[in-house]
Structure formats: C-alpha cells, structure tokens
C-alpha cells in the first residue's frame, strides 16, 4: 500500500549525498569543512545513511528508569528530612553520601517499603556497619557501591589495606550473595579527564579484576557508576558499547548479564559562572543517559560547586527532579536509539577502540597492575591535557565562559595531593577552574 505514497521520489545513496555536498561546497575541502574529529579519535561524518548501516547487539533493560537525589549525611535527622522531601518531589531513588557510620534507623525512618532504590556512597569500609545496613534494609533494593579498586584509584590508598579490603568484600559477598555489594566507579575516570573510549575500557578492565577475584557470580551484582559528559550522542553510544562489551567479556566466564548502570552528570564541564547553563548541561547529560538506556539518572549536586544557600539549593534540586521526571514520559527509550545509523555507528566504533585498550591492559597484567604502575593515571592525564589544550585554543567551548570571556581568567589548578598515598590518585578536575 505504501508504494502509492513513496514512489514519487527515487531512493538515493550515500554516494549521491556526498556528491551533492561536494558540488555545493564549490571547491571547499570536504574533510576540513565537514568532518569533526573528537578527542576519542572518532570522526563524525556529516551524514549517516542506511546503505552503510552497522550495529551491535545491545542488551537492554525494560524497567522504568529511576531518578536519584543525592543526600550528604551531616546530621542523621536532617538527612532523613531531606530524603522525605526528595521523595515528595518525585525522586524514586536516593543516594546517601557519608564519611562516617550513621544511625540507620534515624536516616531511613519512613523511607522503607516505598519502592525506593537506595544507593550508598561511603568513604570508609566497615564490614560490621555494612552488615547492619544489609540486615535492616533486607527487603529494600539497595546498592552498597563498595569499590575498593575505585577507592584506590580515587584516593591513592586502600580503605584499610589490600588484603583486608579484598577479605572484607569476600566475606560480605559470601554472606550476602544476592546483594549489590560492589560497584565500579567509572565516574572517577571521566571526572579525571578520561575520554569515552578510555572510560569504557577502564570500566571493563576494572570490573574484570573483581570477576577474577570474586568469581563470575558477581557479574550481575555490580553497579557501574558512570559520569555523563556533554557529547550527546557519544554518551548514548558509551552506555550501549559498554553493555555490549561487558557481555562479550562475560562469555569467557560462561555467563551473561545486563550491566546495572547509574548515571550522573559530569563535574568536568561545569563552571561557577552561570547556574542556568550548568542546569542545561546536566539536563542534556541526563537526557543522553536515558537514551543510552541507563538504569538510574541522578540530579547534579550544585551545592558542592556553588555553596548555595539552603533554600536556593532546594529549589534547584526540586526543579531538576521535576524536569527529569517529565523526561521520563519518554516511552521506549531504547527504541529511540536503536537502529539510529549515527548512534549505532558510534557504538561500533567506541566498542572496537575500547576492546583494543581492554586487551592491552589484560595483556600487560591487568588493571590493578597498571594502576599501581601509574599507567592508567598517565593515560588519563594525557587525555585531560589534550582536552585542556583544545579548551585553551578555543576549539572546545564552554558557552557561558565564552560569553563572559572578558571578565574571566583561568586560574591554574592548585589542588595538591596533601596526604601520603600508595599510588598517585585520579583527581576530579574541572576544565574551567574558577
């Protein structure tokens, strides 16, 4: 039937498209004018057409995406009130961030039995405390996000010691095999300046250390924490490429799994100049994560950046949640990315490049070894420097800075490693240090 509608116009090919462009360029160089090379070494072409279609099989989730609000626990009571407020504002997931143990009953008062996902981000490793949490939250969906290798990468030290850290995890997993004890905090690499291909490769190699140590059963019980950057379609492809590759390496362990992914907006491109632009950045980044098929998206905590007054901070986070919730009206988010020539092609390219890096890391003894030797840190710094150079030479633009250019100067970073570390840590660094 549809012939009747579509036979007025002849179908056409990539070759014709390119010819047409070249004709219209009137002698200008096609490559220079229309190809965009990204920091990953991937080239964005001016068009992608069905006749050069390529794709990978991507395992996808079908559950509703959760919206997470982060809550830093200073006072237990206050944290609980903030959590209740966040749920009221539409959060379906909460992340508690704490540097010390807290009163579990107070913090979780009236929060349980509400179909809320809980995430923990603890900067210490205390087996007893984790066991107590597991016991009190036994009917809840909880992600403990313990990442001993990630902690080493981020801080330069083990929580306690190599042996004790691994022993603790081993015992926790043994006792609680159905819980999400482990995480791979890939956001450390993103915020430190790794590009998308590196992030995918490092996340895989990082996870492989856990598979090696704790066995293939943990594969489906790891949460992957990604930070999402500003390159909209690449970030969509990042999640897809990662899911494909994770399953690919799991073949070697005779198992398979759809990776559980938690996405948060990156810290790297945010500035102190313009809150509105930052909100738009975070919105775009969360939108990418949704289309990439993440499990959870998270509001950006502007408090860290701005020292916002409580009221404004609450409004910002409330509005963010509202916008995010509105975006979840999107049905079939996986089907939107699925088969898009551009996204599928990016997914293939990112996967190909990341797999190469992963293999290199494995060949040279694995992620932990490369981390101890400083290879991973060096590679990340190399990429971060490249990005900084692009920023300084205005090829990479942060628009709020661009518009306010006359009033701002970039100060060199003065983050110094102030404590003694085993290895050099991967520090988060914003591109525009203001």
């Amino acid at each position, binding site marked *: 039937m549809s012939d009747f509608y579509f036979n007025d*116009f002849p179908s056409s090919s990539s070759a014709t498209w390119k010819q047409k462009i070249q004709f219209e360029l009137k002698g200008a160089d096609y490559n220079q004018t229309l190809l965009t090379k990204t920091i990953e070494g991937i080239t*964005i072409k001016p068009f992608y057409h069905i006749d050069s279609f390529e*794709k990978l099989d991507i395992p996808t989730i079908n559950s509703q995406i959760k919206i997470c609000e982060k809550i830093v626990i200073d006072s237990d009571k206050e944290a609980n009130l903030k959590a209740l407020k966040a749920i009221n504002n539409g959060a379906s997931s909460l992340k508690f961030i704490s540097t010390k143990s807290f009163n579990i009953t107070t913090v979780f008062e009236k929060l349980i039995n509400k179909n809320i996902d809980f995430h923990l981000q603890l900067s210490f490793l205390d087996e007893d405390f984790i066991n107590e949490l597991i016991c009190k939250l036994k009917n809840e969906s909880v992600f403990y996000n313990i990442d001993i290798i990630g902690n080493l990468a981020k801080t330069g030290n083990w929580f306690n010691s190599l042996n004790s850290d691994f022993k603790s995890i081993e015992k926790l997993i043994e006792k609680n095999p159905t819980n999400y004890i482990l995480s791979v905090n890939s956001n450390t690499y993103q915020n430190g300046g790794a590009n998308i291909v590196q992030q995918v490769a490092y996340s895989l190699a990082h996870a492989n250390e856990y598979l090696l140590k704790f066995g293939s059963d943990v594969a489906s019980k790891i949460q992957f924490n990604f930070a999402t950057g500003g390159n909209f379609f690449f970030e969509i492809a990042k999640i897809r490429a990662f899911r494909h590759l994770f399953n690919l*390496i799991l073949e070697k362990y005779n198992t398979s799994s759809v990776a559980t992914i938690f996405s948060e907006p990156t810290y790297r491109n945010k500035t102190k100049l313009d809150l509105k632009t930052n909100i738009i950045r975070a919105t775009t980044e969360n939108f990418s994560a949704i289309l990439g098929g993440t499990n959870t998206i998270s509001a950006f905590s502007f408090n860290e950046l701005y020292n916002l007054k409580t009221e404004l901070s609450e409004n910002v986070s409330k509005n963010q949640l509202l916008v995010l919730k509105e975006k979840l009206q999107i049905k079939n988010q996986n089907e939107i*990315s699925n*088969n898009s020539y551009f996204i599928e092609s990016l997914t293939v390219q990112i996967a190909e490049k990341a797999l190469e890096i992963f293999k290199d890391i494995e060949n040279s003894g694995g992620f932990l070894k490369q981390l101890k030797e400083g290879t991973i840190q060096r590679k990340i710094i190399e990429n971060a420097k490249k990005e900084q150079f692009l920023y300084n030479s205005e090829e990479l633009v*942060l628009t709020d800075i661009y518009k306010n250019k006359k009033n701002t100067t970039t100060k060199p970073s003065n983050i110094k490693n102030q404590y003694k570390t085993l290895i050099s840590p991967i520090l988060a660094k914003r591109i525009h240090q203001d």
Partner: protein
Amino acid sequence: MIRKDFSDLKIEIQSNKISCYEHENYIAGVPPFLRGNSSTMYLQTPIKSKFIIENNSPTSGNSIIKEKIKLGYNAFTLKFNSKNNNSGILLNSIDDMISLLKDISLDEILFTFNTNNENTIPIIAFFICASKELGFKKELLKFAIQINSENFTNRNTLLNFLKHTINQLPNFESISFSASNYSINGNLQNSLSNYFTTTSSFIQNCISEGIKIDTIASKISFSFELDNNYFYNIAILKASRFLWAKMISEFQPKDQISNALQINIINSKSYLSTLTAILGGAQSIETTIDNSFFIEKETYITKTVDPLGGSSEIEKFTEEIILKTWKEVINKQKNDSFNQINEQVVISNENLLELAIGAAKKRIKLDEIFKLISIKI
C-alpha cells in the same frame, strides 16, 4: 582464578537493518527532503533564533530589540496586540511603528509579524512606511508574516498582497502558516491535514492569479508549536517535509527547492524544545531564551545531518504520520464544501497594500485602515 586470555575476543558487527521503512532510502538536500532541507544542514547554516517581542509598548520593545541585537540576535518575532488577544505590542499608527523600529539597521534584521489575520496588511503598510521614514527602502526589508491556517479568513487580502507586491519585495521571506497546536485539539492528523489542504488551495489560488509555483512555494513556510512528546515531534517535522514535497510535486515545480518545507518552531519555552527543533531539522525557532548556541558548541548534535535518522521509534512514527495525514488530505480535498471555498475567491484589482501605505502616511490609525481595505475586498 587464573587471568583469562581475551586476545581472541571480537565484536560481531551486523550490517542488516531489521526494521526498515521505505522512506529511509531518502537523503537530505533533495526532494522529498525528509531528512532535511539542505545536504549539510546546521554544519553550514545554524538554526535561526527569533527573539519574541510581546507585552511591550513600542518604546520598550525598541530597547529590547536593540539590546538583543548586541547579543547577536538578527531575527525577531513581533507579536502585536489585536482585538481577540490582549497580549502583544500595542500598535495603532505608523508613529508607534517608528518608535518600535528607530535606530535599528532594518536591512540587517528579519522581522516576523504575528497578529490576527485581518490586521496583516495594515501592519505591513506601517512597517514599509515607517522604514521609509527611517531611511530604508522597501526592497531591502526582510520580513515574514504568520497566519493561522485554522482561521484563515483573509485569503483575498493575502492574494492581493502577493499578486501586486511579490516582485517589489525581493527580501520578503515568507507567509508562515501555523498548524493549530494538536496537543490542545487532540488530533494531529486533522491539524496537519488542515495545514496541507489550506496551503494547497491557497497555492492553487495564487497560480490562478498568474503567480508561478516556484515563486509562491518558496514563500510559504510552516509554523509549528512543539510539545514535550519530543521524539514524536521530531517525526512530525520529518513527515511534514515529506508531505509538503509530495503535495508540491503535484504542481510540477521546476526548482527542486520548491519542494522543501521551511519549518519555524513557535512559542518555544524550554531548552528541550530547542533541542527537539534541532533534532527535527527546523530552520528557525521563536524563543525568549536562546540555547541554540549552547547546543551547537557543547553537544556536537549539529555535527551530522538528521542524527536520529534510522531510529526504530522515530521512523515508525514518521511513516504512520505520513500515511494517516495524506489519507486525510485526500479526503478533505474530495469534500464538496472545501471545493466551494476555493471557487469563491475573487480578487480586487486595486493594490490594497498601496492603499494601506497611502493611508498610513497620512497618519490614519490601524482600525481605519482596516475598514478602508475591507470595503475593497
């Protein structure tokens, strides 16, 4: 556990697209323009942001325009107050128009006039006249008008305007017909098919008046308001370009570009609607917050044409909208009452715009000019 050997791991690339629609074989820059009006889209021509001026006196409107020009805007939508509508710039005479436009390089700015349909000619008259008094010839003026296609009552005046002046105003951009907001009236096919039947019959009228299809087709554009059904909206824009190309091809234009539908997104209130407009391949967007610079510089979205091309969901919607809407266009065109409206058009030989300009020069007020024209129709 012993470290595994991954060296033989390979990714398996598939090259067959399982769900594939017939319209996926088209490319951008040639009819039916489904994937975009130009072969390189935003890589070479960024989307145009039109800043909306409304709810202002002419004087304060003027200072906002000047302020926004400094920020880089070169296009404005001017919403004028009218009887059915209490918002908008209050404008009664040529002197109000002069207050609104003074100290602006009128030849460098694109103005889109949005008013109730019957005030269109007097407003254009004020614009041409005021510009002349400010030192700008009408040949240099870039402007467009917006017409509501649901309530299209001034067909005769518009035809008269086109017939008499289309050759004297080389920079007149377009008449932008708006489709009604379907999320309010609830039926997209009805809203879109009204747009296509109205514009099609209007083009027929123009041709009857001796205007060539290639002259008129490029002077008609599509104003559309997006809602938050983002991906469905992208499909609407793609489908609309196809439907336009199909409709125009029946008039057998000589110039391919006549088959390209210019899309103007109106009343954009959020960042995500700007994003949707760009993903859908629109030419311009009316907004009070311009995020297109951000999108262009930070997201890489504009580095490839129709980046979501191929998407299972969007291509499915696109085909669905094309098939259903075209069917309804055919039904409406078969309908007798529709044909009657077409036959009743008789156009005055008098140049109504000239008449209105004459009156505007004499400082005659808008209401009076409107009456003056109405008698002549």
